[in-house]
């Protein structure tokens, strides 16, 4: 009974229905090649969405994470090239730390000056993008200069197949990293007091501090977590597309927020789940992918993403209001 009332279940139903419809319009949808491609496209948006999910549960919003992701990626790769460093683990640790550090700024402003998260993150995002282009560089780093170890790492496939036409395709192993981070986020939110304090803060900030949660710490953990995931996702993105573009990720924050809202998280805070977000991300990526297959112009894809945000937010707001009555 409770299963059917959960929003995740409803999202899953809509997802299955959408897959069937898309499959009917275009049978190529069900080809392994396409499905593996879809999953691959989930990885970066998905990791970013996990961070945004936690921020949204805490009652905040983050639009700076794409800037942090690009900054962490570009800076790390620049330094790697400069020193000719050939490892994989250390750069990812560095990118994650850069993201964490930048996230702490968001938390600092939001906590110390009681500023609205949207304004703070609009500001920090803009500052970080500007500093990156102004101080670090504006030129793209393409496959010739990209650290080959990163590219090799991101090329790892779980399954490799050859299609009928003779081209090779596979399921990227990066999906495991994504699922691993999703599991960690789920465990964090569900089984740690810090995770519960995120829900408490998003539900009733006043009551959260009154019952004894350290809401300052919670705020820092939330924004640093989002920053850390952004930093990590940034470098992974660069490695997967063999390109470090300091102007990358513009406008992606809307896709990610749309995916999280689609996954049932409330923009008012206090509600949301990792499973819902995974489904939301898959749905968003699938819809965008289908639009491409159907040769819909990219400008029209923006319209679709915007509509998804509006409809999904309207639905969750309607759901939350109904509960109050």
């Amino acid at each position, binding site marked *: 009974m409770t299963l059917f009332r959960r929003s995740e279940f409803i999202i899953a139903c809509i997802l299955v229905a959408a897959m069937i419809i898309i499959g009917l319009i275009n049978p190529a949808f069900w080809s392994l090649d396409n499905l593996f491609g879809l999953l691959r496209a989930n990885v970066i948006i998905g990791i970013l969405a996990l961070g945004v999910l936690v921020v949204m549960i805490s009652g905040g919003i983050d639009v700076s994470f794409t800037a942090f992701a690009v900054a962490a990626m570009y800076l790390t790769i620049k330094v790697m090239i400069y020193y000719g460093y050939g490892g994989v683990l250390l750069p990812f640790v560095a990118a994650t730390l850069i993201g964490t550090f930048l996230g702490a700024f968001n938390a600092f402003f939001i906590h110390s000056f009681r500023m609205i998260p949207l304004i703070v993150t609009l500001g920090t995002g803009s500052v970080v993008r500007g500093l990156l282009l102004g101080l670090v560089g504006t030129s793209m780093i393409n496959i010739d200069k990209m650290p080959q170890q990163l590219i090799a790492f991101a090329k790892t496939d779980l399954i490799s197949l050859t299609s009928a036409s003779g081209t090779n395709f596979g399921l990227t192993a990066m999906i495991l990293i994504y699922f691993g981070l999703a599991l960690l986020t789920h465990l964090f939110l569900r089984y*740690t*007091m810090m995770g519960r304090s995120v*829900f*408490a803060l998003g539900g009733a900030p006043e*009551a*959260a501090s*009154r*019952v004894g949660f350290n809401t300052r710490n919670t705020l820092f953990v939330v924004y640093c977590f989002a920053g850390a995931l952004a930093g990590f996702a940034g470098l992974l993105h660069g490695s997967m597309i063999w390109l470090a573009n300091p102007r990358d990720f513009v406008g992606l924050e809307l896709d990610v927020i749309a995916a999280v809202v689609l996954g049932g998280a409330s923009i008012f805070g206090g509600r949301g789940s990792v499973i819902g977000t995974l489904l939301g991300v898959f749905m968003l990526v699938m819809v965008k992918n289908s639009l491409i297959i159907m040769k819909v112009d990219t400008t029209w894809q923006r319209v679709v993403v915007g509509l998804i945000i509006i409809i999904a937010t309207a639905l969750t707001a309607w759901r939350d209001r109904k509960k109050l009555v």
Partner: protein
Amino acid sequence: MSEYLLELNNISKRFGGLVALDAVSLAIKPGEIHCLAGENGSGKSTIIKIMAGVYQPTEGEIRIDGVPVTGMTPAHSVQHGIQVIYQDFSLFGNLSVLENLALNTMLLEKRRVVDWTRARNLAEQALARLGVTMDLDADVETLPTSGKQIIAIARAVMVNARLIIMDEPTTALTRPEVDALFRIVRDIQAQGIAVLFVSHKMREMLEISERLTVLRNGKKVAEGPITDFNEPKITRAMTGHDLTDQSYVWEPAAGDSPPRLEVRNLSVPGSIEDINLTLHAGEIVGLSGLIGAGRTELALALFGMNPKFTGTVTVDGREVHPATVQEAIGSGIAYVPEDRLSEGLFLPQSIERNMLATSLNNFVRGIFIDRKRTAAATSGMFGAMQIAAPGPQTPVNHLSGGNQQRVVLARWLLTGARVLILNGPTVGVDVGSKAQIHRKIRELAVENGLAVLMISDDVPELVQNCNRIIIMHRGRFVDEIGPDSLHEDALNDRLKALK
């Protein structure tokens, strides 16, 4: 071992030059039900915060179990078993009953990881101690106020409370819910826990408490076993003067002017049926009934918020068709809603702006607002309504409930209303302000010749202020009590008969 669990001896608290508490002493015995009464601003909240360790007293001594305590913090207060349940309960609506119950204990134990099995056990035990059962997995925001309150009490009991302080616990409860609350309170009393009720509702105090302390203007004015008190005595202690309980007598005006409001065969599909009502100038007519009888729907129909009605409405002999609020106001009908906070006032705005909100059209010159005239009108009203505030520029959210209600009344008077519909005019207002509002309503009826329709669930309020009371049931007028038989018992009996 001391006789008292908690003693406050000659506690004073000053904020800058303002004296909030002046040498107040209060002692609570283990396992007693004590009531702290006082009007808004009497120092009740300050004393709660001192007991909770939120404020430090400027002077005086706090003893717990006979041992003096200095520099008490909220954490100390909790360690000594003092738990405060604030009016908003400090619950998390987005979390389950289970988690709301277990959170405090888990936080006190400084846990980092959540053990959900143990949390469930904790929650079950907490509810079992109160003898209630509840769906542990339901979200708290889906519960009624009474359910939230039970969770707040259960949560307080769980952390080994010895004294539970409840701030205005009965405000949003219906009578059966109040009874259920009192059962729970007696139950936790039997477990040796003391309860301090902080309230201004006299009947409920008399019902549940064993001892009573009354504050007025930061001073203790009365204390003793509840058997020494009755309603008038508590009122006198709280307000400092006797309140009139003279009933309202209406003198029909000489000459035969048409009735102020005449309603013929008014029906709204699905809620009210065939209402006939005549209100004369100077009349205050009560409208009583059970919740859901259609009283609010009737008010909304007259005020143009339910244009689907059929029937005729005349004001001063002129037929009107209140299809929109603007038309209703234009024809002289004013409505003060039940929830003045969400439906009637712009809280962060000044008294002046709130007063003018519905009558700005009367104060325009060309396309500009005539500031001189608005200032004159609002400062006149400010004085006439005796609003306790520094001036008409004070934001409305700085005012007490009683004063806010007066701002709403003032606004309608500025529109030149001739028919005033009041819905729950004194809900959530303390005794003193209540009496002043009642006096104001009577003055308006007598001096300004308004016809007042007063919807209320407060039986004494209706009996005291109305010259007749109409009883509504399932969308119809079913009975009327005239001036000869206006007694609380008469109204209560008829209301009971409806069930």
